[in-house]
């Protein structure tokens, strides 16, 4: 990724939003922001044995496949993608922006409340989106 596209100050402000989500929901294990083509922008929390670059690339592939399926089946638009694992969930959400659309990935622990998670994640998406739109 061309890192010149994101200033240091914007990077810091984006990281703050990720940290807020991690702080507000104790079942959130890690939060990661990536470009739509799979480059890591920022992350915080525990990614387990993986790396931010790996998860960024996988996030990009998975959401693009979900969008392809939504297009194929006439479901209009893909708002988010959820993976349910034995020990938690992963949610991938689009972060809309005219100039810098991105992807938010939230990894959770097992006891997460899905409704609360979606609410918290959507608030974070809105915050990120506003910053990316106005940068």
């Amino acid at each position, binding site marked *: 990724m*061309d890192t010149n596209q994101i200033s240091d100050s914007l990077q810091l402000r984006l990281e703050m939003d990720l940290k807020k989500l991690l702080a507000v929901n104790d079942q959130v294990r890690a939060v990661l922001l990536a470009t*739509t*083509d*799979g*480059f890591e922008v920022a992350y915080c929390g525990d990614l387990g044995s993986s790396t931010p670059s790996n998860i960024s*690339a996988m996030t*990009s592939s998975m959401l*693009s*496949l979900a969008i392809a399926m939504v297009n194929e089946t006439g479901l209009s638009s893909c708002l988010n993608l959820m993976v349910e694992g034995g020990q938690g969930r992963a949610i991938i959400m689009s972060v809309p922006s005219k100039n810098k659309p991105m992807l938010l990935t939230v990894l959770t622990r097992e006891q997460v409340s899905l409704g609360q998670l979606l609410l918290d994640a959507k608030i974070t998406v809105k915050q990120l989106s506003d910053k990316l739109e106005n940068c």
Partner: protein
Amino acid sequence: MAQEYKLIFTGSMGAGKTTAIAAISEIAPIKTEVANTDRQAHSKEQTTVAMDYGEVQLENGDRLRLYGTPGQERFRFMWDILQQGALGVIILVDNTQSEPIATMKHYVHSFKKLVSCDRAVVGVGRMDENPHPSLEDFSQALEEEGLDVPVFAVDIRKGDDVLLMLDVLMNRIEVWEMLNQLEAQA
């Protein structure tokens, strides 16, 4: 009874995998392209991040399912997923990119299981713009690796060029399987 076969198109970013599948697919190809933010790696506007998919029906009724891989190394996990159950691989190289032979070798090694049992062909694009290295250079590099892989000059925008590679690949796979059966019977 008609059979279905899975084939892979791979190669570096910008080598033309999406274009090649679109050139021959009889269905509207499924693409997973997004905006390319890595303009240092390649100047193209969009890049594939998961896979391309297309289909071609052969004269005998068999159907080829065509999967294109993402070109960039960070999507390597998709290469491993996509080559599961694949019958053969088409490696595309853009001769105007830097070090095209090294690039070809990288993909040859990444798809070694298919390449080492005659289930691969190499297509070199844009040779009209940059004729060096030559097709012989590519073939020699493969021979030095102990591999017998056909190398073609192709214009991946032309369906006939892509279909010729598929035809040769399918013939080689057929011969390989016949020889294998004969060996098993002996």
